[in-house]
């Protein structure tokens, strides 16, 4: 049985039509009136739109969402994101407040509403898509919520019917000190406090920005955003789950389905920066386990760091191994050689322990074992910079991640000097990049400094096109480019060089 979505408006056909004639009656669609700029998207749209509108509205919203995703990949702060997004939002998805007196208020809101639901259809099919969609929609909602006119925002919140208990005067007096300390405020400005189950504000709890007492979170009124946003995410996740279940019953002809499939495909591209062709490097013969030490000179800093730690400790922790194994897979090391490499590297370990505890994971990364999906996909894709930069920071004893992000500036400088980056100007540049959290810029800066001569040469000769020297966003691209540049004139003039192709 399919559970119905009870929050839906009344069915399309009203009850006042004679039941016998109901199926012949023309459907009466509720033309929604959008009172507020913000929308919790509880009611699905019911009016008719053209196919063209269907597609363009969806694509516009998609553009906004992918820009938002790019912002979060680049570690932009909330303010930076807001600033960056202003023009994009105005262009693709304008949404003005009631006070702006625009003529198209209703139209704008309708587009916002409809496009949301179209994308909901497109992105509810898989767990992964659902998670990303809900994540991005949440960012978008938060952005709009923060910018909304305070009075209108209050009106909107009131319509949501959230159950919040206000903290009484007595309790407030008693806990005031602790409540203020918890939110990190030094001065005691008077404000209202709410008391809710802590599960409703996981964000605040996770950052330790709220007082917890016996399961209740004491939230200051100004943190309302967090509460409302959490509620938004919660409802959206539930709805997406329902949509996913209803999707197979859509029983669609070939008008909407292709559009939806196309939309969701163009959204799945975070790891596209790696292509398997990166593994094939002209002039570099099949790599074996013994060659890694030499090749490691061409590795990006993250991988050099892993390699050096491995050599120093004869061991790497799980995430480090995973990151490194995938990278090695990406440069063309075969599974057999990779197992040999790790076996030799863990030289303090017995064969038995190695086979029992480590070999499986290496084989899993290569897709040699594991579920059907894993084997068919030939294991995991080598991690991109994006992936490495957005995962959790390493804990004690762990070495994975991007050193530009995980090292302190002093340790980073030390590491760079150890791998032979001595140029003062470069180091200074790196320091500034890192301070601004532009980690990939720092990495590219180092690349350019290390390969200065070679880059100049290929530029002068014109043998490499501009795209060949584009910003590096994948450790494997780093390696490939580095290796090719260092082996110029050995019969591998270019990555996509025409003459090479004809041979």
């Amino acid at each position, binding site marked *: 049985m399919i559970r119905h979505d009870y929050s839906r408006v009344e069915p399309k056909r009203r009850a006042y039509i004679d039941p016998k004639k109901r199926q012949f009656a023309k459907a009466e669609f509720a033309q929604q009136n959008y009172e507020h700029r913000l929308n919790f998207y509880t009611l699905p749209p019911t009016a008719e739109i053209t196919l063209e509108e269907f597609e363009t509205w969806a694509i516009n919203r998609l553009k906004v969402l992918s820009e938002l995703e790019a912002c979060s990949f680049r570690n932009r702060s909330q303010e930076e994101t807001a600033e960056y997004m202003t023009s994009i939002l105005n262009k693709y998805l304008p949404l003005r407040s009631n006070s702006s007196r625009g003529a198209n208020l209703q139209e704008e809101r309708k587009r916002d509403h409809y496009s949301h639901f179209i994308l909901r259809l497109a992105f509810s099919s898989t767990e992964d898509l659902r998670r990303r969609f809900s994540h991005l929609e949440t960012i978008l909602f938060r952005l709009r919520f923060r910018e909304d006119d305070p009075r209108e925002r209050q009106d909107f919140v009131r319509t949501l019917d959230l159950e919040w208990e206000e903290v009484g005067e007595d309790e407030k007096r008693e806990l005031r000190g602790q409540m203020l300390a918890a939110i990190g405020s030094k001065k005691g400005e008077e404000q209202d406090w709410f008391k809710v189950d802590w599960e409703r504000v*996981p964000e605040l*709890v996770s950052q330790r920005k709220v007082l917890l007492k016996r399961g209740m979170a004491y939230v200051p009124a100004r943190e309302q955003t967090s509460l409302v946003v959490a509620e938004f995410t919660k409802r959206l996740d539930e709805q997406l789950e329902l949509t996913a279940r209803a999707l197979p019953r859509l029983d669609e002809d070939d008008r909407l389905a292709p559009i939806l499939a196309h939309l969701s495909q163009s959204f799945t591209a975070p790891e596209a920066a790696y292509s398997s062709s990166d593994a094939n490097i002209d002039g570099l013969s099949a790599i074996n386990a013994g060659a890694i030490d030499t090749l490691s000179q061409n590795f990006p800093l993250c991988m050099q760091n892993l390699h050096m730690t491995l050599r120093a400790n004869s061991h790497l*922790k799980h995430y480090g191994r995973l990151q490194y194994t995938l990278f090695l897979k990406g440069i063309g090391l075969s599974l057999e050689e990779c197992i040999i490499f790790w076996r030799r590297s863990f030289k303090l370990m017995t064969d038995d322990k190695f086979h029992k505890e480590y070999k499986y994971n290496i084989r899993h990364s290569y897709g040699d074992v594991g579920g059907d999906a894993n084997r068919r996909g030939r294991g995991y894709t080598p991690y991109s910079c994006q992936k490495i930069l957005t995962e*959790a920071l390493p*804990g004690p004893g*762990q070495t994975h991640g991007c050193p530009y992000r995980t090292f302190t500036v002093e340790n980073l400088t030390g590491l760079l000097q150890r791998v032979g980056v001595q140029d003062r100007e470069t180091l200074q540049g790196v320091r500034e990049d890192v301070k601004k959290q532009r980690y990939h810029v720092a990495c590219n800066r180092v690349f350019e400094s290390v390969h200065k001569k070679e880059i100049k040469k290929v530029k002068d000769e014109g043998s490499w096109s501009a795209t060949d020297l584009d910003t590096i966003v994948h450790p494997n691209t780093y390696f490939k480019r580095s290796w090719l540049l260092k082996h110029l004139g050995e019969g591998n003039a270019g990555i996509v060089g025409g003459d090479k192709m004809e041979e």
Partner: protein
Amino acid sequence: MPHSVTPESTAAEEQPAIKAEQNAQDIAMADAPSSGEAEDKAKVNLEELFDDDDDSDGEFASNHLLTACSKISDKSQYSDPDVMRAFYQRLFPFRYLFQWLNHSAVPSTDFAHREFAFTLPNDVLQRYQSFPTADTFRKRCIADTPPRIDIGPVYSTNPRDRKTLRKASAFRPISRELVFDIDMDAYDDIRTCCTGANICQKCWTFITMSIKVVDVALRDDFGFKHVLWVYSGRRGAHAWVCDKRAREMDDSKRRAVYGYLEVLKGGDQGGKKVNVWRPLHPHLERSLKILPEYFQTTILAEQDPWAGENAAHLLNLIPDTKLREALQKKWDSSPGRPSASKWADIDSVAKSGALSKSSKELLEAKQDIVLEYTYPRLDADVGKKLNHLLKSPFVVHPATGRICVPIDPRKAEEFDPLSVPKVTELLVEIDEWKEEDVEKKIQDWEKTSLKPYIDYFRGFVAGLLKEEKESEKGGVKRERDEHGEAMEF
């Protein structure tokens, strides 16, 4: 999704086969015989055992056991099948374990849909085992003598039937206890007394401190009442938060709890690990009331982490360059100076004028140092996901032979991991026990030093059951309705 392979990073060394394969469900499926096969095998074994099982409480069986045990010296393999069989027959508290996971006396899906993972004597990991009752569970254990049992989540359907479902999505984890894993591994950079798998009384204090801090936060802040702490058998402890509210949390809420409790961030090259806001959050304020006492005794006196060269790390944590230089000079001239004196030096040198920043900043820096050396280091990967496996209480640690006994957090200081009974010792205790009161028949475990631990566990389970019952009384009608609806699916 690369991330779905389970991180076996920190705790890995201790728990070999399981961790490596934890989320890689498929291998388990491949390795495990199809469930029908396994059951057949179990039946055969059971029949063989049946007689033995029946009179196991009698005098004869005890004598029999003695001869079996005499062959088992303390040095023999603790996971030897004979030892394991005797252990599961006589000592393992199946009844309370069942009640604990079932949340009531009548068998329910809370137990029947719960995943158990057996590590068999030949190191094969069998995942997705499930049992309708405590008795079937017991029989399987006696038949297979697994050296290790892990407990997973409760699934939406019986884990054994997962492959017969038409849609894979119908099989998903729906609840499990909120769990924590504290492992000595994480302390390797600040522990000087032992390395690797070894522990002593001194370094066990790290675990004691963690239990104190985490336990109070779970109870006072999050409002959880049923927190079970369990010794992991070698050098760590696990916590199982069993409240209904905790069991039903999704991954994001689990992450939130971990985020709340996590203070130390960054790898070995990341510099200062503690970066907290001022004013301090009440949780940290409270932790700083609990921890300094240990900092004085355990860290400064016993671990002596800044002896000789190692003082560089302490210097790095002091934000004031002028003070740092003054201290460096002082310590260079007396290389043998112990950590306690160095710690005291910070204040005395600062008072003598070598301080360019405010004394408040110095105090904060010192607080940060105390936190860095004493604050709990949780293995986050174990608890953030609903479907992770964790070793069951009361199983035997294969390397040490010690039982994974519960730790009473109110008396955490008194717990001594080195005096936890070993399985072989317990079996000898049963044999040496003299029948005092013939009238009353008593359980084998009551004859051993395992008794206080099982008594504690029984009390814990009783408390949990009582609350479950009360909450059910209130919501029984609704529960039933929901249940009925769910069945329709």
